[in-house]
């Protein structure tokens, strides 16, 4: 196992998906993956382990109740709600622009895309067009946010597997620079509130674009560094390859989106399938895996960072000076009706479904939170894996509890 050292051999995974759907469209059988009710008691010769809510590897206040038979997990039930803040209810009491602040607190590692997704939904209801420069700025900050978010994933996943250094390299060096860039453009480092209904909060300050392009150029080399440090590390590959495999059928049925879905080889990306903003003009690939194991979920994210850099470069090149805010009055009423806006957040398909009754605040707002929906697959995904793989699988799903509990 240590013997087969694979170092700096770039594995190119062929895309198994062409235009045909892997799900047999004419199959009439039900997916045989209905979960079982979690047993209230541990099995006779097994053990009951309560992982969390205070545990270093649950990435927040998540509890996973696990029963085991020896070393093998027989059932797992994630227990959530420790961080529930009733965002959907709060939104019913706030005006539309005020809700952007709430969305910052959902996936706090990717607040930009949360803002954006919400604004997409409201703009759909309002039917406003936003200025081109604002759209480019959105793409730049959105993709920077994706890189920052994946940097956190990389670091924390490294810690889950036992490598401490990638965390401080990716989290403390690269993400820090992205956050500095965000601070410069909007003044905040975590909860940005930058993307507003009708545009963005402010134009980029002088020299910001050159800083971004400088960062992008350096970041290519940094990602190569992650490859040598973690991605192709034989121990890391031993721990994550062929662990927690998820089939395409299973992933789609469970509503998995984002890198977790793409790791199964399924070429699905909202940026391509349902282009929003100016993504239809951008040229980029969708990296996909083959068998959907932990390593490929990780690898897809690393590749995505490279693609994001390409998108940022294109957006920087195409961006022209101009307005950054559409013609939106300070206070407005949204016409009655309903709208659904969604986009490709770092963790998957993030959508806002808003029902309006032409009052200043939404009548009902539902958040399609990718972390929440991706998390439930753990009920079946953890089964039959060893207890030590639980951490590897849990980490590779990459959830943010702020979004799970909302």
């Amino acid at each position, binding site marked *: 196992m240590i013997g087969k050292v694979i170092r700096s051999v770039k594995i190119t995974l062929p895309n198994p998906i062409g235009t045909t759907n892997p799900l047999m469209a*004419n199959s009439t059988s039900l997916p045989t993956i209905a979960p079982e009710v979690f047993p209230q008691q541990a099995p006779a010769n097994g053990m009951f382990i309560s992982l969390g809510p205070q545990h270093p590897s649950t990435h927040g206040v998540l509890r996973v109740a696990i029963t085991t038979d020896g070393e093998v997990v027989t059932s797992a039930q994630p227990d959530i709600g420790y961080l529930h803040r009733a965002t959907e209810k709060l939104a019913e009491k706030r005006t539309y622009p005020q809700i952007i602040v709430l969305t910052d607190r959902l996936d706090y590692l990717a607040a930009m895309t949360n803002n954006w997704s919400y604004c997409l939904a409201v703009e759909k209801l309002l039917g406003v067009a936003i200025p081109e420069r604002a759209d480019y700025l959105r793409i730049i900050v959105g993709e920077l946010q994706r890189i920052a978010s994946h940097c956190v994933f990389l670091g924390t996943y490294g810690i889950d597997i036992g490598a401490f250094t990638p965390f401080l390299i990716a989290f403390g060096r690269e993400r820090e620079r992205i956050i500095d860039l965000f601070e410069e453009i909007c003044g905040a480092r975590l909860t940005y509130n930058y993307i507003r209904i009708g545009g963005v909060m402010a134009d980029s300050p002088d020299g910001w674009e050159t800083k971004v392009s400088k960062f992008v150029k350096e970041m290519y080399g940094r990602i190569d560094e992650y490859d040598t440090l973690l991605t192709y590390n034989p121990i890391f590959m031993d721990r994550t390859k062929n662990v927690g495999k998820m089939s395409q059928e299973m992933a789609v049925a469970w*509503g998995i989106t984002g890198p977790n879905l793409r790791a199964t080889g399924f070429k699905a990306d909202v940026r391509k399938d349902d282009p929003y903003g100016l993504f239809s003009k951008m040229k980029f690939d969708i990296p996909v895996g083959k068998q959907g194991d932990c390593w490929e979920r990780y690898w897809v994210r690393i590749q995505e960072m490279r693609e994001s850099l390409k998108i940022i470069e294109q957006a920087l090149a195409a961006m022209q000076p101009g307005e950054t805010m559409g013609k939106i009055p300070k206070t407005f009423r949204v016409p009655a009706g309903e709208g659904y806006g969604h986009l490709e957040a770092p963790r998957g398909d993030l*959508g806002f479904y808003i029902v309006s009754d032409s009052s200043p605040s939404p009548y009902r707002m539902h958040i*399609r939170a990718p972390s929440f929906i991706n998390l439930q697959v753990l009920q079946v995904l953890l089964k039959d894996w060893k207890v030590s793989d639980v951490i590897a699988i849990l980490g590779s799903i990459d959830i943010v509890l702020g979004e799970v509990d909302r």
Partner: protein
Amino acid sequence: MTTQELLTSIQAKFPGLQEIPKVQGQVRGDELYVAVPADQLVELCRFLRFDPPLSFDFLSFVTSTDWKTHFEVVYYLVSTLHKHKLVLKVKVEDRAKPEVPSIATLWPTADWQEREIFDLMGIRFAGHYNMRRILLPDDWEGYPLRKDYVAKPDRYD
């Protein structure tokens, strides 16, 4: 498939189903909106899921709205193959004991989403294997997302 074609192929199998007409002056997405009675839901979903020209294999989200007089459960379906979308709406008139059949066996992703609706809106999903509260504590009283919910101040308020 365009929305019109979708509608005709659904109506060919379920003649009673109607598209929800767009109210004048209201905004709405360009998806097809179909009203479904609760008793036909599972059958329709099975058809939508497995019929080759439709093959709605991806349930994007399930949610619900409290319209004060009635509840509405919304299903947002996407076909990853044909890229068409469909919104199903189930009207639940009985406010005292709202119940909708569960579709978690067709799309397992509905598992927690239905539990969340039960938790926050109080709509039961008949046939769900594990209909318990998910976000709120098990002893929570009331369903917060209902419009007539009155927040009781607790010791932190």
